[in-house]
């Protein structure tokens, strides 16, 4: 069975990520973000959302474990922050209902949702510039970079929340991530 662990960055929806994976029959568990990287044994990792970049524990090191990583909200911003991208305040807070345009139809994570998908979001900051090796895969009226992927390293990020009930095709995102991990 595929095993995907959820790294808890203290987001209010972290447990829903755990629940979404559990309900899909994936072996999963919640782990603290200060878990030593060498203790992690998984086919993939989800970096949860959370309130602050000052509280991301060992997330930077988890990107080096050579397993696929899906960063959600703050989890995506972590990738831009610790690699060579850029994170900053958005001009327009992204809350609740957002329509995301899929800009890369071949993307393994969200390409299958093209041409657009309705999502639930909750963030003030956003990724301003993707790190090298990444491509922007989704955009919206309220946020330039709604999703990004580095398919060589299997690092993926979404600025919104596939785990909440109001995101229309959230489960498909997790299914796609499972395929990447298998």
């Amino acid at each position, binding site marked *: 069975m595929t095993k995907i662990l959820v790294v808890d960055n203290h987001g209010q929806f972290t447990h829903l990520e755990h629940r979404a994976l559990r309900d899909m029959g994936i072996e999963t568990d919640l782990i603290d973000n200060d878990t030593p990287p060498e203790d992690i044994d998984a086919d993939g990792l989800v970096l949860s959302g959370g309130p602050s970049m000052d509280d991301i524990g060992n997330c930077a090191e988890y990107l080096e474990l050579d397993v696929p990583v899906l960063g959600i909200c703050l989890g995506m911003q972590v990738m831009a922050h610790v690699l060579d991208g850029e994170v900053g305040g958005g001009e327009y807070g992204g809350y609740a209902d957002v329509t995301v345009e899929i800009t890369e139809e071949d993307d393994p994570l969200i390409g299958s949702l093209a041409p657009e998908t309705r999502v639930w979001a909750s963030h003030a900051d956003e990724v301003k510039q993707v790190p090298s090796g990444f491509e922007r895969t989704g955009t919206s009226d309220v946020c330039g970079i709604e999703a990004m992927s580095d398919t060589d390293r299997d690092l993926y990020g979404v600025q919104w929340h596939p785990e*909440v009930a109001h995101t229309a095709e959230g489960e498909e995102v997790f299914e796609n991530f499972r395929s990447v991990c298998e």
Partner: protein
Amino acid sequence: MVETGKFIEEAVAEIRDEVGDEHAIIALSGGVDSSVAAALAYKAIGDQLTPVYVDTGLMRKGETAQIRETFAYMSSLEVVEAEDRFLDALSGVTDPEEKRAVIGEQFIREFEREAKETDADYLVQGTIYPDRIESEGGIKSHHNVGGLPDVVDFEGIVEPVRDLYKDEVRDVARALGLEDIVAERMPFPGPGLAVRVVGEVTREKAQVVREACHVVEEELEEYDPWQAFAAVVGKGTGVKGDNRVHGWIVAVRSVESRDGMTARAQELDWETLQRIQSRITGQNENVARVVYDVTHKPPATIEYE
């Protein structure tokens, strides 16, 4: 989703195992969570459990009478009439977190007395998963998490539904054969109507919000909302029968949700909204206007405080 048969069997066994021949106590709020926890515990240990229901004066219309009826089968049920003590304690308190703290403290005082009288060794609580997340994350404090154990020296705390989400608790409620009204009941916050009054809670405002919530629940039944209620949010000017009134502003909120973690404001038709407005302003002379809240969660929470 939770497998209810297996869950109930395991929860009952766990409670029996933990409490043994000792005595346990549970605070029954009238909401689904504590009702399910109480029913599971009663199934496990019968009259070794004392369910305590405290009427804080912040309950919904008719709620206390209904609790007496629904849980009449538990012969050990204790109903505490504490309305005046709660409202007196809330006098002059305006900060939302302080209001929660005052209610929590008063609640502990009431409960401590009952726990000592019954010589309870164990505390059963209806804490569910989201309560723990929101408390840990600092978004809101929930009065059923923490507090009590600091004052009463219980031998242990049993939380039989701690890993369940709201929708799963309701499934369990149905499987337990609790009356429909409990299984389908809308979520109601621990601090009760106090969080539906922005600012100081007074007897007058509590009365207005209780009547208004009742109207909203009745009128919106056909929309099958996940949660629907009214809140007193401030004061505004109106004109009634040629007289200027400076009356309460009542906000109506109705949302759809799976688990309370995210929510969408419901689209209601104009006629329904007007009927709600007319009933609330017509039945409460001190209400000047009624507004409808169109904000999703996020950015708003479902409740006002």
